């Protein structure tokens, strides 16, 4: 078991034939992911990486029964791609695209929600269920199979923490990058609940950062609903106010969104909050003993 995706998940790729789409589709296929085709308008009928290309997501779903779409299209087409996937009854869109306009994501997420489609991202590394299925751009070799659920706003910190988990002799059930944009799809609390209900996950780690209040919402949610141990790290404890730190959403505006507030809220909810990013693996190991 795992959450969101497993070895039976059928995936199509939107933006399949582009440079990024091609490279990462190959990597995913190597990992064993069931990529069953791709969508590139006007190239329908051709093949790419020995897989069929479709003109529309609807056709791709009809022919392949895919339930997940991995999206690599450029930022100006991302809302269109997400809404096309939702219209075609895709269940989960994994959006890698960076620099998507906030207004577009607001609209696309709203539409996806109304059509029963979940979104990961945008601007995220994707999702990996160790040794089963990788839908995204993460380096596969970092993830060892195990019982820790990872949810992170940051790509490299997902790798860092999964590596630390392996170093302390543990492994990952599913690791998910949720992205650091101002509006994102699935958030900490949605995924924490899935992990809570997953019999193969024993503990969760959440990696948050400055900006917004998703970590504070998660803290309240953990207090009320989560029984399994949760470890957290919040990046940007030393970040200045009003400055965007790389991610579009990583900004302390006025008095809200600081790391301190988030750490305090999580601690109050019974989460083990780690101050040094070097101690995350150790804290997870400790939470299981």
């Amino acid at each position: 078991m795992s959450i969101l995706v497993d070895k039976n998940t059928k995936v199509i790729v939107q933006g399949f034939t582009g440079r990024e789409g091609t490279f990462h589709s190959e990597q995913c296929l190597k990992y064993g992911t069931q990529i069953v085709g791709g969508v590139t308008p006007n190239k329908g009928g051709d093949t790419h990486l020995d897989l069929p290309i479709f003109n529309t997501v609807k056709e791709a779903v009809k022919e392949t029964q895919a339930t997940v779409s991995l999206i690599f299209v450029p930022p100006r087409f991302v809302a269109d791609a997400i809404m096309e996937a939702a219209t075609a009854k895709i269940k989960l869109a994994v959006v890698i695209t960076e620099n998507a306009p906030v207004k577009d994501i607001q609209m696309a997420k709203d539409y996806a929600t109304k059509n029963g489609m979940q979104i990961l991202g945008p601007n995220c590394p994707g999702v990996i269920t160790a040794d089963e299925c990788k839908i995204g751009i993460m380096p596969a070799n970092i993830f060892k199979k195990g019982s820790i659920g990872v949810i992170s706003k940051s790509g490299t910190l997902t790798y860092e923490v999964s590596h630390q988990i392996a170093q302390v002799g543990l492994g990952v059930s599913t690791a998910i990058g949720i992205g650091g944009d101002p509006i994102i799809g699935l958030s900490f609390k949605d995924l924490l609940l899935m992990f809570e209900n997953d019999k193969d996950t024993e503990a969760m780690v959440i990696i948050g950062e400055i900006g917004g209040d998703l970590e504070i919402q998660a803290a309240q949610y953990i207090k009320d609903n989560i029984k399994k141990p949760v470890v957290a790290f919040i990046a940007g404890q030393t970040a200045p106010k009003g400055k965007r730190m790389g991610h579009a959403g990583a900004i302390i505006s006025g008095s809200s969104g600081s790391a301190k507030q988030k750490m305090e809220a999580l601690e109050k909810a019974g989460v083990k909050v780690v101050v040094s990013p070097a101690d995350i693996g150790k804290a997870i190991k400790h939470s299981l003993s």
Partner: protein
Amino acid sequence: MNIHEYQVKKIFKEYNLPIPKGTIITNYHDAINSAIEIGGKMWVVKAQIHSGGRGLAGGVKLAHSLSEVEQICKEMLGSRLITNQTGPEGKLVEKVYIERGVKILYELYIAIALDRSIEMPVIIASGEGGVEIENTAESNPEKIIKIAIDPTIGFQDFHGRELAFKLNIPKDDVPRFVNFARILYKIYMQDDAELIEINPLVKTKNGNYLALDGKMGLDDSALYRHKDLEELRDRHEENLVESEAKEYGLSYVKLEGNVGCMVNGAGLAMATMDIISYSKGQAANFLDVGGGASAKTVSKGFEIILRDKNVKSIFVNIFGGIVRCDRIANGILEATKNVDIKVPVIVRLDGTNAQLGSKLLKEANISNLIVAANLEDGAQKAVLAAKE
């Protein structure tokens, strides 16, 4: 991207949102003619810099005669204005906006921004116009009214009426207020704004509603579809090094410490600043060189970090993923040839092929290049090196 008040007002005018008559000048010799053209007996001269708190800092001044207008412009242009947001170095005033003075009946605050917790734009308004809204938010939070606008239906009159009633706006002014809010929402959506703020919005003795100030931030990711707005970018207002970094695909923010940082990934870059602080040091910057960390980006990264004379050591913290650490190590070695680095460089490589990468660095035998065993070790060594 932020834009100047005078640029915001030009946008307001295009959308028929009423503003006082005004002119932008860069030379005080133009002050009197501009004031005559604007007309009236009272003028406001406003320094055009990207910062709030201009009024308190002397960047907004009232003039009662033409000679006074000229005098104020002369003093302001070329001066450095220090506000509570600019830092001690202040900002150079290159342009001033001369505006017709108005007699005010009452003042309001109105703004639109994204509320990330509900993922919708909210209109924020207060009857306490003209003062710092952050202060009101702390002292009298009940005086700040917020209404979320679901973009599916957009701004409707009932939104505006609800705000007006909660603000106790005189009933004859309610339609005027509703109209004002409707236009503001339209600008917010059409121009892909992150924030629009008017403080104050005033009712004048002539019975008009006017935007006396205007602040606007735009979504950088949406600028591709607003070429006209992109042209409003004022490079002088941006940190030159930060802008240069951006051109090379690097994300750089200068900080106050002395340990330079070069990291791949925004989250890890923030975490690196944090672990430096945890190791009793202080980061000189945030720098994300992106996933690739090639010789080219690493060279540029070193160059940018070393512009900051406070930097006493550099911590290169790279987690190799799909780009393997041995390739990254070669990139670092090549960069040390391209850039003259006199401070100690501490490198932590982890992830794919980390051991091979570290071995390459050690074998290169560069005197000021220290290979760290892990993240903690790297941070401690970098902090120590900066202290020596």
